[in-house]
C-alpha cells in the first residue's frame, strides 16, 4: 500500500465500520473460540479452567449433538434441491410473460417478507392435530377420506418433513426472484440460435438456460445451504427439538446449552464447529464457481 495523504483520510473513514466489525463480529467470535477451550458455566462459583479440547471431545460423544448435525444434513439435503428446483420452475413460468405475472411474483415472494416466527405460528395452526386441523382436513379431502388425522409436530416421522415443507414455502420466493433476474439476463438470440440449430424447449433449457443460469443457481444453493444449517426459529417455536430429538438442530442445541443449561463453554465449542462447517461448504462452492467465472 502506498502511504499518502489519502491513506489517512481513508483510514479515518473506514474506522466506524471497522470498529463495528471488530466489536460485534470478530470479538465475540474470538471470545467463543477462547471459551470453547475452557469449562466456563454461567453462574458457577467454581474457577474457570483451561480444559484443552475436552469440550469438543464431549461434543462428538454427545448423541444429541450428533443427532442435531445429522438433522441439519438431512434438512439441507432435502430442502436445498427441492427448493431450488421449485424456484427454478416458478421463475421459468413467470419468465414466460403470461398475464398475471406481476401478481403471481408478488404472491410467491410474500412469504419471504414475513418474519419466520410469524410463519411458524401460522403453520403450527395449519398443522393442528385432529380432523379439524387444516392440513389434516385437506389431506383427508384430497385422499377421499383415506387419510387418518395425525399430530404432525409430535410425530417423530412427520415432524421434520412438516418443518421442511414450511421452510420451502417460506424460502422459495427469494430464490425465485434471484433466478428470475438471472433468466431475464439471458439474451433472447441465444434461444433463437438454439431453435434454428434444432433444439426444442427441453434442450434449450438444458443447453442454454441452465448453463447461463449457473452462477445464480450456485449462489442460491449456497445461501440456502447456509440458511439450512442455521435452522432454528421454526424448531424453537413449533417443536422445541422434539419429538425424541427428531427436529433438533445445531443452533437449537447451542441455544439450549448456553441459555437453558448455562454451559457457555460447550455452546461456544458448538458454534466453532458450526462455523467451520459453514466455512467449508462456502469454500467448496466457491471452488465450483471459480474456474467458470469468466463465463459470467
Amino acid at each position: 500500500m502506498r502511504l499518502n495523504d489519502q491513506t489517512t483520510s481513508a483510514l479515518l473513514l473506514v474506522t466506524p465500520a471497522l470498529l463495528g466489525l471488530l466489536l460485534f463480529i470478530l470479538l465475540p467470535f474470538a471470545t467463543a473460540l477462547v471459551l470453547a477451550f475452557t469449562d466456563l458455566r454461567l453462574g458457577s462459583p467454581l474457577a474457570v479452567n483451561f480444559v484443552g479440547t475436552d469440550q469438543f471431545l464431549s461434543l462428538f460423544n454427545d448423541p444429541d449433538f450428533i443427532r442435531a448435525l445429522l438433522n441439519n444434513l438431512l434438512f439441507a439435503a432435502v430442502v436445498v434441491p427441492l427448493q431450488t428446483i421449485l424456484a427454478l420452475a416458478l421463475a421459468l413460468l413467470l419468465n414466460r410473460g403470461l398475464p398475471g405475472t406481476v401478481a403471481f411474483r408478488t404472491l410467491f415472494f410474500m412469504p419471504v417478507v414475513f418474519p419466520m416466527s410469524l410463519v411458524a405460528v401460522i403453520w403450527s395452526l395449519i398443522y393442528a392435530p385432529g380432523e379439524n386441523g387444516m392440513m389434516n382436513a385437506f389431506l383427508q379431502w384430497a385422499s377421499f377420506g383415506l387419510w387418518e388425522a395425525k399430530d404432525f409436530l409430535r410425530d417423530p416421522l412427520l415432524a421434520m418433513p412438516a418443518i421442511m415443507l414450511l421452510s420451502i414455502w417460506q424460502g422459495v420466493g427469494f430464490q425465485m426472484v434471484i433466478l428470475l433476474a438471472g433468466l431475464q439476463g439471458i439474451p433472447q438470440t441465444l434461444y433463437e440460435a438454439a431453435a434454428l440449430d434444432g433444439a426444442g424447449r427441453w434442450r434449450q433449457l438444458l443447453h442454454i438456460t441452465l448453463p447461463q443460469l449457473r452462477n445464480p443457481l450456485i449462489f442460491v444453493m449456497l445461501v440456502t445451504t447456509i440458511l439450512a444449517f442455521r435452522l432454528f426459529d421454526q424448531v424453537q417455536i413449533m417443536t422445541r427439538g422434539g419429538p425424541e430429538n427428531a427436529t433438533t438442530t445445531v443452533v437449537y442445541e447451542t441455544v439450549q446449552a448456553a441459555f437453558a443449561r448455562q454451559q457457555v463453554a460447550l455452546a461456544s465449542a458448538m458454534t466453532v464447529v458450526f462455523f467451520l462447517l459453514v466455512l467449508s461448504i462456502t469454500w467448496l462452492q466457491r471452488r465450483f464457481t471459480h474456474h467458470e467465472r469468466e463465463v459470467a
Partner: protein
Amino acid sequence: MATIEFDNVCKSFGDGINAIHELNLKVDDGELMVLVGPSGCGKSTLLRMTAGLEEVSSGEIRIDDRVVNHTPPQQRNVAMVFQNYALYPHMTVRGNLEFPLRMQKQPANRIEASVKRIAEMLDLSPLLDRKPKALSGGQRQRVAMGRAIIREADIFLMDEPLSNLDARLRVEIRGEIAQLQRELAITTLYVTHDQAEAMTLGQRVAIIDQGLLQQVGSPQEIYERPNNSFVAGFIGSPGMNLIQASLSSERGEIGLRLGSKRLPLPQPVLASYPGLASHREERLLVGIRPHAIHLAHADSTQHLAARVCAVEAMGHETILHLDTELIMHANPKTAADKARENQPHLLVQLNGHHNFRVGDQLRIELGIGKLCFFDADGRAIG
C-alpha cells in the same frame, strides 16, 4: 438446395405497424439474394419470418414449394448468422460448432470429422478450445459462419453479419462470404443496410423501404435503371442527384427545363426512354449520378454555374457539394441524411484530386446520355 418464395407476405405488429406489406419475391436455388434498405424498413423482419422466429400475418412463405408458415424453426433446416453472432458463451468454439450436429443426434465420429473439416475451411483449428469471449470480432464472425455451414442446411440466412466488424475486416470477410457461398451454392438471404455490401455481394439485390419491395434485380440493373427515385437515391455512394425539372417541347424538339436552363434531349436519349413522350409539359424528376457530371470545357454551351459548398477529398476521387440554380429533390435515403441536408446540394464526383475550396465558382456540365427520369410520384419513366 432450396428455393424461397414470398407470396403476398404481410407482417403487422400488435401496435398496428405494418412491417411488411404484400411482398412477393422468389429466391432461386443456390442464389445469394441481398435484402437492403434503411433501418426499420422491415428487411430483418422478413428474414426472421423465413427463419420461423416471427409469425407471418398473412400470405405464404414457401421453401421448396412447401408452405412453412406454421413450421417451427427447428424443422425448417435453415441456418442463420445473427448480427451479434449469438454464439453460446458457455461453450468452446468446438462446442458451438458441434451443437447443431448434436441436436441432430449425429454419431460422435461424424461430428468430429465435420468439426475438423469446417475448422480447417475457416481457419478455426487453433481456436477450437477457446470460449467466444477469448476471440476477436472477426474470429467470432467465422465461428458463427462455421456453425451455420456445418449442418448443411437448405438455406442460409444472414442478418447484417458484418456490421460489428471494422471497415477493413468487413471488406475482407465480405469477399470470403461471397466465395464460400459460391462454393457451397446454398440459397442465401442476406440482410444489410449497407448498399455497398449489397452491390458487391448480391447476385440479385432486393431493395425494401417502409415494408414495400421497391425493386429486385442485378446490382447493375438497379444502379443503371432504378425503378423509382428512392432506389436511385439509396443505391450508390453518394446516391443519385434528383433534380426537379419539367419537360417542354419547342419547335417539335423535346427538351428539359432545369431552372432557367433549357437542355435539348438528343435523339438517342429519347429513343431509350420512349415513355418520355407521354410526359410532355409535366413536372418530373431528373436523376443523374454524381460521376456523370463533369467540369465544363471552355467552349461548352450547356454549362451551369455552381458554387462549392463542401469538398470531400478521398485521394482517388473528389466529391463536391455544389450550390446551383437547380432545385434539388430531397434524397429520402435515411432520416439522418434528411436532418443533415435540409436543402440537398448537387453532388459531383470527380476522378483524382482537385484543389477546390469552399466558395469557389465553377462551371459544370451534365452528361446528357446518363440521365434517368422519374414522374412526379417518383416512378421511373421507361
